[in-house]
């Protein structure tokens, strides 16, 4: 099947926006990235983070539940076979604030990170891996959020 270049670029642009602020992050490594956590949309998050266009990669594996019984607590995990990962950026695309967490990794930890996040509604979970050489890759996976019933 022919890969649709437009699709690839669109996906990449989406994630680029999410990461645009990383330039700012590098300048002030210890400052809390308030701008990133204020970004109300994926596009805004692009602007506030700042990075090169990320490419979708099968070297990133996401572990997420297919269905979340409740959006308040959804356990997500990201791992990668890239061995020089510098930073993870976890996002829930359709949350009012898409950015959930930024993880800065060292050589003393493996890339595998798990976190429990809030999902405001059925949404894709996105994990972006920024490597030491500046390359950025991402993977995305949908989590369906349900209305449970009577709360048992």
């Amino acid at each position: 099947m022919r890969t649709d270049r437009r699709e690839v670029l669109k996906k990449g642009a989406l994630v680029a926006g999410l990461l645009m602020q990383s330039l700012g992050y590098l300048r002030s490594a210890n400052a809390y990235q308030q701008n990133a956590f204020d970004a109300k949309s994926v596009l805004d998050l692009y602007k506030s983070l700042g990075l090169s266009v990320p490419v979708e990669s099968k070297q990133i594996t996401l572990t997420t539940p297919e269905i979340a019984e409740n959006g308040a607590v959804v356990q997500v995990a990201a791992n990668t076979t890239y061995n020089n990962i510098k930073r993870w950026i976890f996002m829930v695309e359709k949350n009012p604030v898409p950015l959930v967490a930024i993880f800065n990794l060292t050589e003393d930890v493996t890339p595998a990170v798990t976190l429990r996040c809030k999902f405001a509604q059925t949404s894709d979970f996105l994990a972006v891996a920024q490597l030491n050489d500046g390359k950025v890759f991402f993977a995305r996976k949908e989590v369906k959020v349900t209305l449970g019933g009577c709360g048992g």
Partner: protein
Amino acid sequence: MSDPMRIRLQSAGGLTTVKVLMSHEMESGQRKDEDGKIVPIWNIQDVFATLNGRVVMSSEWGGGVSKNPFLQFVLKGTKPGDKLSITWRDNKGDTRTDEAVVS
């Protein structure tokens, strides 16, 4: 005073899986209380882990992290006796540090 975290370590072959359950309300600033007023943002912003005093992982969180956050990561090259310390700091300036020893 903030409540203690629950840290569980599982070691095998030099790798130690760290499982941390933190006690924190993590108000995202999106929720409304019974009177319809927005509950103000109150969440952990910074988390970092040190092994024998050296920072091995740091993290920035927003209100999208669940209440009573759970975090899991894996330490490399650990040996029995290594001391792991985890610290969080929230937007009100509260902070909490708990420790665990690799067995």
